[in-house]
């Protein structure tokens, strides 16, 4: 517990001033469900001089549809997304959100916080990657957008600069695609994924036309499994499910001998289930 100063900004401008002043010496507390525990156990590096609590920045709390995407503000919680009619169109996202923690965690935890934490098994990050989401980063020098594929650089590491804030998450609206999320975990409640997959699918009848596959907990970062997508495109759902079964995508990078064989064996099964589930939604839509 080394932090000496506490900031409680009320506006983005004020927030960015503090970030600019302290850079790596300030730790941002959003929902706090990960970072507060790490603060208590001295696992925030480098030890921060200041803590900045950002949940009173009301202008970061929104979900709205604009310019072909749904925009989710930087302090918007999972619970707000789960009850948002705008988010309901993203089946895979809703399924992932429902798997996160428990209701009291979802009340306060945020997708932006989870992106900052960059856990390789994070449920929401896998869903957002499959849906083609991007994040808008703000700093005193301006804004830039990063796709989910560009975002993560290692376990608990992102490409964010230390003066940058995750201001907004943008999820493109795609009326012709459906998505599904499947999580394999030991317990039903409050567990961390052993393998998770999100599939975003555009199908013509039973044939998979466009597909994005993202995987959680199979590499140091959430990954997009293009090698698997190539096996799925232009196949019928049944053929695609058969093709991915037992396939270990080159994007997976499993090193722990404790679970490598098991995870490699189940990746294809989980992706297959997600393909079927996403396709069932396509059928349901017609």
């Amino acid at each position: 517990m080394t932090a000496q100063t506490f900031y409680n900004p009320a506006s983005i401008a004020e927030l960015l001033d503090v970030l600019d002043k302290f850079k790596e010496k300030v730790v941002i507390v959003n929902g706090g469900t990960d970072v507060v525990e790490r603060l208590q156990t001295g696992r925030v590096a480098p030890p921060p001089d200041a803590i900045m609590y950002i949940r009173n920045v009301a202008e970061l709390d929104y979900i709205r549809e604009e310019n072909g995407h749904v925009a989710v503000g930087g302090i918007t919680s999972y619970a707000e997304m789960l009850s948002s009619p705008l988010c309901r169109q993203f089946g895979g996202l809703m399924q992932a959100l429902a798997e996160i923690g428990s209701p009291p965690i979802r009340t306060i935890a945020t997708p932006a916080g989870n992106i900052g934490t960059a856990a390789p098994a994070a449920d929401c990050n896998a869903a957002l990657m499959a849906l083609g989401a991007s994040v808008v980063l703000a700093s005193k020098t301006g804004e830039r957008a990063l796709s989910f594929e560009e975002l993560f650089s290692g376990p608990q590491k992102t490409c964010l600069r230390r003066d940058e804030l995750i201001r907004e998450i943008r999820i493109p609206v795609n009326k012709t695609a459906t998505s599904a999320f499947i999580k394999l975990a030991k317990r039903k409640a409050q567990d961390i994924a052993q393998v998770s997959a999100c599939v975003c699918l555009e199908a013509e009848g039973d044939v998979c036309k466009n597909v994005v596959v993202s995987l959680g907990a199979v590499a140091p970062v959430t990954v997009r499994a293009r090698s698997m997508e190539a096996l799925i495109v232009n196949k019928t759902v049944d053929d695609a499910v058969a093709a991915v079964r037992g396939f270990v995508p080159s994007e997976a990078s499993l090193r722990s001998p404790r679970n490598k064989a098991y995870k490699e064996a189940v990746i294809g099964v989980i992706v297959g289930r997600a393909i079927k589930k996403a396709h069932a939604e396509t059928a349901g839509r017609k």
Partner: protein
Amino acid sequence: MSVEVTCTINGEQHVLPVEPAETLVESLRLRLGLTGVKKACGTGDCGACTVLVDGEALRSCILLTASMQGKSITTIEGLGTPDNLHPVQEAFVEAGGIQCGFCTPGMILTAKAMLDKNPRPSDAEIMEGLSGNLCRCTGYVKIVDSVHRAAEKMAP
């Protein structure tokens, strides 16, 4: 350098000088002696430290006290009194939803927040609502019964 936080705790206004990284469970237990708030896992997983913040059930072990400026916090001590239990407390006593009692404050406060939003939850909704509260004694059957009983008591 301490931060001065003004908040309402169990209906009373408090001005607390706290450390920036101090958690709410520490402030409630150590500064105010509200030991009905239990600290167990310290990671937000077990639910024993649950308190109500502006009516929402939250984990006080992963909340910074410094962020509670202007908030209204209710602990189990503020829900009812020994002579005048809250209906959720009464229901847990009557249905035997308590064994060792360690998880009970968190269970009751989580159940209260759930019932305020959903006055007649199904079994599945209760189990989902309490999925973040761990009990190592009861096996949950009597806890689910207790929440149903509380719902009946609180029905208008």
